[in-house]
């Protein structure tokens, strides 16, 4: 049961940290100057596309272009958090 909780906690922490990273990457891409059109960030996982439809209007599209880098990040962070939590548990059990 305790191990299951560690896994759940690690998974949640990994997902939230990944979302933090994605938010940061997307905001930086959004505010940086770039040419109009199709732009991607975070290893091509998120895209932002702006196309002028007329002189005054601009159409914007954004979303996930490739989910693999996102899943890899979650997996790496998941393993990292499990490792840190187990290390911390062992340390607190020893003391």
């Amino acid at each position, binding site marked *: 049961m305790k191990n299951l*909780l560690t896994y*759940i906690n690690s998974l*949640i*922490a990994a997902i*939230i*940290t990944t*979302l*933090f990273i*994605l*938010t*940061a990457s*997307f*905001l*930086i891409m*959004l*505010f*940086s*100057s770039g040419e109009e059109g199709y732009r991607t960030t975070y290893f091509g996982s*998120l895209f932002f596309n702006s196309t002028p439809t007329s002189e005054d209007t601009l159409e914007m599209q*954004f*979303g*996930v272009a490739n989910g693999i880098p996102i899943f890899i990040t979650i997996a790496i962070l998941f393993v990292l958090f499990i490792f*840190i*939590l187990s290390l*911390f548990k062992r340390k607190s059990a020893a003391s």
Partner: protein
Amino acid sequence: MRVYPIKHLVHLYSTFFMRKVLNFGILKNPLIRILLLVAFLILMTVIAVSVFIFFSEALQTEEIVLFLLNTYSSTIILWTIVVTIFLKVIFSKVDGFLRMTINFPISSKERNFSVFLYETLISFVVIFLLSFSVVLSMVLIHQFAFIDVLMVNLLYVSTFAYLSLQVISKLVSFACTFFKIEKLFHIINLSILVFIFAVFLRKAQTLVQELANDLIQETNTTESILLFFQQFHENYGFWLTTLLYVGLVVIMTGLIIVIPDQSHMSNSKHLLAFQAKNVSVMKAYVLSTFRNMNTLNTIALVYLAAIILILFNLSEYILYTMILLSFNGIYSFIHSQNLRQMMYKFDYVAWKDYLYLLVSQLIIIYLVSIPLLLSGFIMITTVIHFIIPYVVVTFGVLIFVLAGILFPPYNDNPFSVITSIAVVMIPILVIGISLTFMNLGLWMNIAILIFFYLVMILFSIQGLINLRRSFRNEKFVDIH
């Protein structure tokens, strides 16, 4: 009034804050503390970098700089009012927390002033964090060319707005004591602050429009009370504005010290409202929250906010005022603590306790919403404004009950509430933003949100189990 007792009291609040908040609940774990600190620093850096990149392209001429700073200044006033209302809600529940100072050799004036200083400190930390990215970007782009404008627009305006609101609160407190209606102070005060916010929000909306028109047409015709300091600065220069600002700050601080305030001296926390003949556990949970003075105050505030919205022709949104009551869920754990301690002696089941907590809060909110709902049938024209408030409130209670379990505000400790809201809200904010730009589609978003809400329920139940364990351990230590 003596300086030393105030200094010691502020020191006491800081120590209390360090021990009971920054080293309490899930923050006991150093790993969690480090992770939260890193997350906070990343968030601040990202915002600062984004604003800098945006400003470095946009802020090319003096007109645009002044337009942006004047617009931002009206936002800062609104944020100052929001922060003050938030702190007043939190500090309206500090009577229990301040009880520890009753036996100290201090006057009530010294006590009240120390609370004011602490409120001021927290307000300015929040306002600093809000304007940090703008100030940093301005300094990096234009060095100190607009430092006087920055000082007037951000520092002077926010301080003046904050102190004005504090003076108004003191005057309300004095009037309540004079008319012997001290118990109504918090509710009257909050209603006035909400009213001021509504007025300024309307003014800010038109101001931004007028400023934009001025920028496009290259005119300078905008006049507003929100731009009082800016226009004084434009006409009379920086030093006269500073002189006026210092004079006003001294007068208002003097008024805050001089006006007698009995608002934190309340003794009774409950009102014997609604008696039940057949008491069940669920009824006991509902009544423990419902009879609390703070809940009754919040209910009155909900109805007052609804009346204000009707007066401002915004009756379409009256059901949204219920959100104020869902915030009360943060205190649900503490309000039912006596019941829980009794149940610990019998057959305590954490998930049942959680269910009681949740359902009791929802029962109160839904009951309070009935008059608003009935009025809504006449006033609200769009169906969505019936659905959204109920969805927000129902899911909001889940969040606030979790916050109350993670950082129980024992003895009305206001700092636990502030920390719990920050700790719970930052990840929720990030999840919300990321789901928006990931554009995963309606059903995928719903599935992800359900997953996070299930996690919240799991964490809440786990929190209740941990709290029971720590309660038993503390008892064990006490006995031996």
